[in-house]
């Protein structure tokens, strides 16, 4: 019961917290623009 239900529940809880901390989409436009400028080419979206 513990391994089948509770353990995955705890792990998915940690997964949700980590995924909420993963905010690459919010910096992506700036990041892509800066990297494109650095490499001297238009990085396709």
């Amino acid at each position, binding site marked *: 019961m513990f391994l089948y239900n509770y353990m995955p*529940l705890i792990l*998915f809880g940690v997964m949700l917290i980590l995924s909420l901390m993963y905010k690459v989409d919010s910096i992506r436009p700036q990041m892509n623009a800066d990297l494109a400028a650095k490499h001297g080419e238009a990085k396709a979206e």
Partner: protein
Amino acid sequence: MAKKERLNEKGVPFGARQRMPIWYGAVWSTRGIAAAINVVLVVYVTFYSTDLLGLNPAIIGGILLASRIIDAFTDLGFGYILDKTHTRWGKARPYEVFIILEWLFTILLFNTPQHASQAVQYVWIGFMYIMINAICATALGGIDSVYLARAFTTEQNQIKAISINGAIVMICSIAFNIVFPGFLAAGGKTLSGWSSMVISLGVVMAVLGILRFLFCKEIVKDEANEDGKRTTNDLTMKESLSAIAKNKYLFIIVGLMLITFIVNNMQSATTYYFKYVYGDVSTQGTVAITTLIVVPALIVFPALAKKFGTTKLLQVCSGIGIAGIAIRSLGGTNLVTLIIGGILFGLGTMPISLMINTYLIDCMDYGEWKTGVRVEGLVASIANFASKVGAGVASGLTGLVMGLAGYDGLAEGSCSCTTTCP
């Protein structure tokens, strides 16, 4: 109705096109097919060693375990080598030749000299197994995300390639799993039968696997060092590790990978659940149908990623996973809630399982943006390492919890507990 403007993308590399052709994704999948079938075949090494060569299964088991330990170290070493690689064919692409070597060593593995002493046979099998897993498979796994980032310049094309690859590899693996036992029954009873069977398969797979190298070129090239800019080729191991230490999103993705691999590899707990809690282990097969959710997911995920973004997809799917386990827990032994919960549970792990390379490429971009230096090989190899640690932790965790719960498989009605039952 307005006629859709037809794009003229002649001359544009396939991986950079707005409308990447499906066939290009299929060609990209060829190496994946060859590698996946190799994994399925090499699993038979224990059977081959014990039933055809008459070797001791415990020693064979020890050799396979030792290979896995070596594997963990070669992962990180290969990442560093990859970061130092710069050839006319690109950075990751040259290592595609390892698919030919992988099949060559597989052919040699299943052609162990039958008249040699047992000691020689153990060494032969150990060497070939290490070359297949710790060297060839490590190299092929380590280059995947780096090659993807360099062969497809847009995130949409990367996700499309991953989806096509996932679908084709899965279909071929299932087909092989169905067909191979038949071949085994027909020709797998003798050493010569195994030999001819593996040689024929190996030649076909090596040719198929190298097609990706031949047709999928790296579009993104390393910058020349003339303007004084430093590329990863100039970085020392210390500098690479320092750049990685500043990449917070890599740590998050590695954490997510670890969890995903732990969750996915705790399947042994399912058997115990159906045997002791549900009371009918055969029902496990019915609930296992939920794993087929991966088929529509492969079709739908690229569209969802395009519409909502890969980050949002990750967050929503984690929430769906929690809902799935909650439904499964609340429903107890109800078959309907077990199936619905299983489907949602599966969806929860899909973003990392299916699109890990996309997230790793994000981390490489972020690291370059943050620190000014791009570390690719080491990032990919750390993730590869994490997946293996996750699988190992899952096995250890299952045993540990069952041991703590006092489980004894030989005892009658071993699991009388109601809350701590594994």
